[in-house]
């Protein structure tokens, strides 16, 4: 089996190398022979996909058939591993996850090469660039991190098993989502670089890649949030974001990708920021590679780094080459990227995008700087320092709040120029509502002057409310106009509004989701925690809850043995649920793992929902009683609800617009005005 896999990988390398070289040569010529050569390159690219799929299938089949002659399977699987996790073995270790990277890239390349008729020359450039990235990954797979390497010595009876932290349902979907995001940014990168190299006229490459970019961004968003949810549900420290280097690595391309999604609109609408957009998409791609480098190289320690080796050097060399190529063509062809319009007013959509980009990039730089500062310190001072949550919270949170303010204001500013009247009309009521929310918080005892974290919580509440109210007011305003003209009810009018300009209103829905995420985060200063050794009938009082230990017990299955506590949760004297915090001991790896249990209080608290979060920390060796740590984490469920809304908004934005409704216009303007036009 390993020979088939090795052959498939070698074949894939040969095909992608041919696709790259033949594609490159074909681009120099304009005769029929060059066109034929280009076509063979395209087909080789398609065949690469088939070869990589074969390699991936072989690896998964080896996991299912417990083929421990393959070292990777021996180190990441065992006979009693459940089937879903055997499938997840593909991305659970270094070699497998690189193969998965290569598989996704080949998949994206496959789709792109099938759609080449949209613009054959631009697609040929993009295909060649994707092939070059593919060659890099296949070189690593064939020569540095071979997933089909054979075990030395005798055939082991069983594998060492999957890392316990990875044996959780979300790990079956979190890495694929994150990787689809990381890898997906290769496509807009390839189109951008291709357009730059060939001096592609106009903004068509942006229109071609718009959906690619949004889908990729959506995957990365899901990946980042699922990572946070996994950390919350598995690591058991009661939080979801620890500013770990690997978490940071996933956030950085998300930030630059978000900046690109915004600023690219300025290029589409106004022909501005052409160089900047190139830089942003290059940076996003390079940060994705940097993320993989951080996860894989072991240069920075992380709780998420499950696979480390010396392939970091390969990535550094690749990143250096990519930077050199991008910089060279940016300088060489900068004349092609001149702005077509000038900025007419400071209070305009354009300037809000500029500030949005500035804040997103500052945030990205802060995270990059904080992540790499330990290495810089080691180099300069001779010793590492820790740059953890206290640093990031203090530096990044104020910038994030400014960004939230722009999220509220930006979308309601008009292109070119916004009048003060218009600002007043759009913001007066949302601003009053938002300030009322802040006032309510203070009335209920949250005094921002008492603690910096309270100050941030109140600010986040006010700004989140401002975003929510402005989005709602936009929907209502547009909906009323359509309802008035078409005699529909307000809800169906708002639906119509959305359908007429899906990109604009999908974007508003995404902003709505972002505000909900901030609401989820702002509950952090109000978290409570209690740790106690609990005998039968012992109680923990935390917040409005009383937790009573009813019993504790244990179980055993071929994969792990476990013990758990049975905790009844009471509120106002009434039992609301029973929770089972658990601790497992995995037999093949010999590693223990705690599994927290979470109860979101939707039924009890409605909009002020929070989580009751219980961790079975282990047993007191002397008394034999379990130690339970209880957390109350207010508002956290809003983070996951916010994610769902963000994804929904992205899907709405991806849907093509419905037929344009033309509003009768009596003005002496030269083009028809479209209701709800503009993004």
């Amino acid at each position: 089996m390993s020979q088939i896999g090795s052959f498939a990988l070698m074949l894939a390398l040969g095909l992608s190398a041919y696709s790259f070289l033949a594609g490159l040569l074909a681009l120099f010529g304009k005769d029929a022979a060059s066109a034929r050569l280009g076509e063979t390159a395209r087909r080789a690219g398609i065949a690469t996909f088939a070869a990589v799929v074969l390699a991936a299938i072989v690896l998964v089949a080896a996991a299912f058939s417990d083929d421990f002659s393959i070292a990777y399977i021996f180190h990441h699987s065992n006979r009693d591993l459940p089937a879903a996790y055997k499938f997840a073995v593909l991305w659970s270790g270094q070699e497998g996850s690189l193969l998965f990277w290569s598989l996704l890239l080949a998949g994206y390349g496959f789709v792109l090469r099938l759609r080449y008729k949209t613009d054959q020359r631009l697609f040929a450039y993009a295909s060649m660039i994707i092939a070059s990235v593919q060659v890099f990954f296949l070189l690593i797979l064939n020569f540095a991190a071979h997933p089909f390497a054979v075990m030395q010595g005798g055939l082991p009876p069983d594998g060492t098993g999957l890392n316990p932290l990875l044996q959780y349902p979300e790990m079956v979907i979190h890495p694929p989502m994150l990787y689809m995001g990381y890898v997906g940014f290769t496509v807009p990168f390839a189109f951008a670089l291709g357009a730059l190299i060939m001096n592609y006229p106009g903004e068509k490459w942006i229109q071609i890649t718009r959906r690619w970019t949004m889908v990729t961004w959506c995957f990365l968003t899901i990946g980042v949030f699922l990572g946070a949810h996994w950390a919350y549900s598995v690591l058991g420290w009661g939080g979801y974001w620890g500013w770990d280097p690997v978490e940071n690595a996933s956030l950085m391309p998300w930030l630059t990708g978000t900046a690109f999604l915004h600023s690219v609109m300025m290029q589409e609408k106004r022909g501005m920021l052409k160089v900047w957009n190139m830089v942003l998409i290059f940076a996003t791609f390079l940060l994705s590679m940097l993320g993989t480098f951080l996860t894989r190289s072991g240069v920075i320690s992380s709780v998420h780094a499950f696979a480390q080796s010396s392939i970091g050097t390969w990535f550094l060399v690749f990143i250096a080459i990519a930077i050199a190529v991008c910089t060279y063509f940016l300088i060489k062809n900068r004349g092609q990227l001149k702005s077509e319009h000038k900025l007419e007013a400071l209070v305009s959509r354009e300037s809000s995008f500029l500030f949005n980009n500035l804040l997103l990039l500052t945030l990205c730089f802060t995270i990059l700087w904080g992540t790499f500062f330990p290495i810089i310190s080691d180099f300069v001072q001779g010793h590492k320092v820790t740059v953890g949550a206290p640093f990031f919270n203090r530096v990044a949170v104020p910038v994030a709040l400014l960004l939230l303010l722009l999220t509220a204001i930006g979308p309601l500013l008009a292109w070119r120029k916004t009048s003060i009247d218009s600002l007043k009309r759009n913001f007066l009521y949302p601003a009053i509502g938002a300030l009322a929310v802040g006032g309510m918080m203070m009335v209920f005892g949250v005094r921002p002057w008492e603690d910096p974290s309270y100050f941030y919580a109140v600010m986040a509440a006010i700004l989140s409310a401002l975003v929510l109210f402005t989005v709602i007011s936009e929907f209502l305003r547009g909906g009323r106009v359509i309802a008035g003209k078409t005699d529909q009810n307000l809800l169906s009018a708002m639906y119509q509004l959305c359908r007429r300009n899906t990109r604009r209103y999908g974007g508003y829905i995404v902003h709505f989701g972002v505000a909900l995420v901030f609401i989820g985060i702002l509950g952090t200063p109000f978290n409570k925690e209690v740790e106690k050794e609990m005998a039968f009938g012992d109680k923990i009082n935390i917040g409005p809850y009383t937790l009573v230990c009813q019993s504790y017990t244990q179980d055993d299955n071929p994969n792990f043995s476990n013990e758990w506590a049975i905790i009844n949760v009471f509120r106002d004297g009434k039992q609301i649920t029973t929770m089972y915090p658990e601790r497992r001991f995995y037999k093949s790896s010999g590693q223990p793992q705690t599994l927290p249990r979470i109860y979101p209080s939707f039924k009890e608290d409605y909009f002020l929902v929070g989580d009751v979060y219980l961790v079975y920390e282990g047993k007191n060796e002397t008394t034999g009683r379990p130690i339970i740590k209880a957390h109350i984490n207010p508002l956290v469920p809003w983070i996951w609800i916010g994610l769902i809304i963000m994804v929904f908004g992205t899907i709405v934005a991806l849907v093509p617009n419905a037929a344009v409704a033309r509003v009768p216009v009596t003005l002496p303007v030269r083009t028809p005005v479209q209701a709800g036009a503009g993004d």
Partner: protein
Amino acid sequence: MHSAQPSRKQAPKESSAVPAAVVGASRPHRRGQDALATAGRMPALLFRSLQIMLVCATLFIFLGAGDADARFKDLGHRMMCACGCGQILLECNHVGCTYSDKMRNQLMASIDKGNNDDLVLQGFVQEYGPTVVAAPSATGFNRIAWIMPFLALGMGITFLIYVVRSWKNRPEPALADGIVIPQGRELDDLRRKARRETDL
């Protein structure tokens, strides 16, 4: 995201409750104080204010220092567990961790001894190395860690202002024959009309 030491919230609340009592207590000595203030050519109100501020500051410091539990939580969130799990000391739930319990006990002992925050942290740095502190200090080279993000933001804003100014000063691009872009009052009129028509 980690919380930023919510337990510290108590200190200002308690200290702010004190001044009224202090003012009331000082009433019998009022005449003497007034005389002192006059003698020093300091207005009585200013003197009284300084007095109150001094008392408040003293109480604030001592109340904060006396709240051992709050300090434990605060300092425990400013340190990393030394076991290599990469988690904040008070958040380390690493099963079988041989460091976190010991470090927590050390922290409580150090606070009980009456050491101030710097001394507590210094003790941990000496024993576990500089990586035990969860954020760079604001001294020496480490200060750069804190400065750089704000410097980047400042430079970004400066660059943005430069770009915006250069864009605003850029001449209008040439238009095809016959196209006239309305400006100023004419443009405002058109916008008003369009808004009225579309109600948007």
